[in-house]
């Protein structure tokens, strides 16, 4: 009795009940496809979030003031508990930015860009108007630090900053809404009534799922924006670029030291600014997304398990239904191993076929965008899902198969 023979008997057994075999296979198919596809969706969303973070700029640290109403209000309400020498947090200023640019105090910092921003400002050109989500006033180094290359035209330069020239680099969304197919470079737009000359258009950053439109932006020299839009108040943030990825931690320490000194932070006085590190952010987010992926995979694994129980169920029915056949086979001399093998192979074939079809379905499904996410198939999840499905066949098939093999021929033959 060769293995090929046993497989042939098993295939014949499955073919005898095509509908039942197909439905059982479907259970495994759904389980395997769900595992692969959901892990792929998880991986896809994780990668897209990572990309978004990287788009914010590599090796950059964002310093923003933490003069939140909560902390300040708390201090003013209970001045007796404030042991520090001052009760007011100091805002970030251009002088802070200059101090950070000092090569001796902060050798690991490669560029510093003070940033003021104004949200939702109306811009217009020749009758067309558009509300720009964010108007940013900054230094030219901002383009490199925040990873915003120009697609058309040029950046503005330090001269423009010194002269407070009203020039602006606009994002793709702004360009499309104001100019349509026209070339915006060299034309004059007005932002809340103030004329600005467009010198460049940013490269499209692409819609970043969940985040605001990174292309709906206008970037102008710092003093120009302060003069016309925000006034000469505090900075919203200071964007600091470290020399390299390895320098980020050192740069962060230097920034802390400089700002602590300038703002009188130390001892019991809490820092009135915060530093956002891209790497830390990335770690936090990837931890969150991997939890999300594991959760998805767990849900899918449950459906795979249910499919496995379906196999046991169907094989038990099959064994009961074919008890007489088993008796006949034993009467003509089938050894226990052959019967065991036949039913085990039947169960394993069901799960293997289901698994392979599930992989095919998952691969097809992964070609489409699901809920705004492009799934990324993880090869190990394919191997795992397929392996688990075969193991399920063997494991869940072994109980019914054993029952079949152990039947005494005389009892099996008497069975009606």
């Amino acid at each position: 009795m060769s293995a090929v023979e046993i497989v042939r008997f098993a295939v014949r057994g499955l073919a005898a009940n095509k509908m039942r075999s197909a439905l059982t296979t479907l259970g495994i198919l759904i389980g395997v496809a769900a595992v692969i596809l959901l892990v792929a969706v998880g991986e896809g969303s994780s990668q897209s979030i990572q990309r978004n973070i990287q788009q914010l700029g590599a090796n950059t640290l964002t310093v923003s003031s933490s003069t939140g109403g909560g902390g300040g209000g708390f201090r003013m309400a209970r001045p007796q508990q404030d042991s520090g020498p001052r009760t007011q947090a100091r805002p970030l200023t251009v002088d802070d930015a200059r101090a950070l640019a000092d090569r001796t105090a902060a050798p690991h910092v490669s560029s510093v860009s003070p940033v003021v921003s104004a949200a939702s400002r109306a811009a217009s050109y020749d009758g067309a108007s558009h509300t720009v989500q964010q108007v940013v006033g900054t230094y030219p180094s901002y383009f490199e630090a925040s990873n915003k290359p120009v697609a058309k035209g040029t950046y503005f330069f330090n001269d423009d900053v010194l002269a407070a020239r009203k020039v602006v680099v606009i994002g793709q969304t702004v360009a499309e809404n104001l100019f349509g197919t026209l070339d915006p470079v060299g034309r004059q737009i007005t932002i809340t009534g103030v004329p600005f000359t467009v010198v460049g258009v940013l490269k499209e950053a692409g819609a970043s799922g969940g985040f605001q439109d990174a292309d709906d932006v206008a970037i102008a020299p710092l003093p120009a924006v302060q003069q016309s839009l925000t006034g000469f108040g505090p900075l919203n943030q200071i964007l600091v670029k470290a020399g390299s990825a390895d320098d980020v931690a050192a740069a962060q320490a230097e920034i802390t030291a400089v700002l602590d000194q300038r703002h009188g932070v130390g001892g019991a006085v809490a820092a009135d600014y915060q530093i956002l590190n891209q790497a830390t952010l990335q770690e936090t987010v990837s931890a969150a997304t991997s939890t999300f992926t594991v959760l998805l995979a767990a849900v899918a694994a449950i459906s795979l398990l249910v499919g496995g129980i379906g196999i046991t169920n169907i094989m038990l029915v099959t064994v009961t239904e074919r008890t007489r056949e088993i008796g006949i086979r034993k009467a003509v001399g089938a050894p226990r191993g052959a019967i065991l093998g036949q039913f085990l192979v039947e169960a394993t074939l069901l799960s293997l076929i289901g698994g392979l079809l599930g992989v095919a379905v998952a691969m097809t499904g992964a070609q489409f965008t699901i809920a705004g996410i492009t799934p990324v198939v993880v090869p190990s999840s394919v191997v795992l899902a397929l392996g688990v499905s075969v193991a399920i066949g063997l494991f869940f098939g072994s109980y019914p198969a054993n029952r079949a093999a152990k039947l005494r021929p005389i009892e099996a033959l008497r069975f009606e």
Partner: protein
Amino acid sequence: MSLVLDVRDATKVYGAGETAVHALRGVSLQVEPGDYVAIMGASGSGKSTLMNIIGCLDVPSAGRFHLDGVDVGALDDRRQAVVRNRKIGFVFQSFNLIPRMTALANVELPLAYGGVRPAERRRRALAALELVGLADRVNHQPNELSGGQQQRVAIARALVNSPALLLADEPTGALDSTSTLDVLGIFDRLSAAGRTIVVITHEADVAEHAKRVVRLRDGRIVEDIRLAPVDGLPPRLREVTA
């Protein structure tokens, strides 16, 4: 001459204690090669139990049982399967063909479990089907065959491995009279060709075809009549040819 079948003092008890049923109360039966034995008895006489023991489907509670010189009781599960495969051919009352398998596949089954190569298997299965007159029905499934044809397929399956003993349990019990004659004719011819056959039946007309009739009652052999010599032709066949 070595015996094909040698049962000594076989007893079989089902259950235990108060409810114990003594199906066999010490049966001894020897069958020589080439004999054609009919075992008769009313229902409850223990003839089915004896048949199950002879067919290695069941083991006696006590007593010894040799089949073609092999002590079957001493064999493990695996070797018993081999004995069922090589030494015994079964014919059942209810045919017991495997549904959804063609006649040819059904006949090939014992050869498949016996490890015969596919080409040889097919050749021998076709020859066995030819022998029972079903060469034109090889690709029919059991549900496409009449009862008589199904039983002939079952006989072909029993014969295909050239077993030492052909064992038939009420082979004509589910058949009409024409098919019964067909089947009995096949048995007569097989017997004439030197096959050892044991038929279990409660019908006298069936028993008349045998060379020897053993009658069971209440688990004991009560009568053992020889109708024809072991090395002669079966009685009814002799009448036909004479």
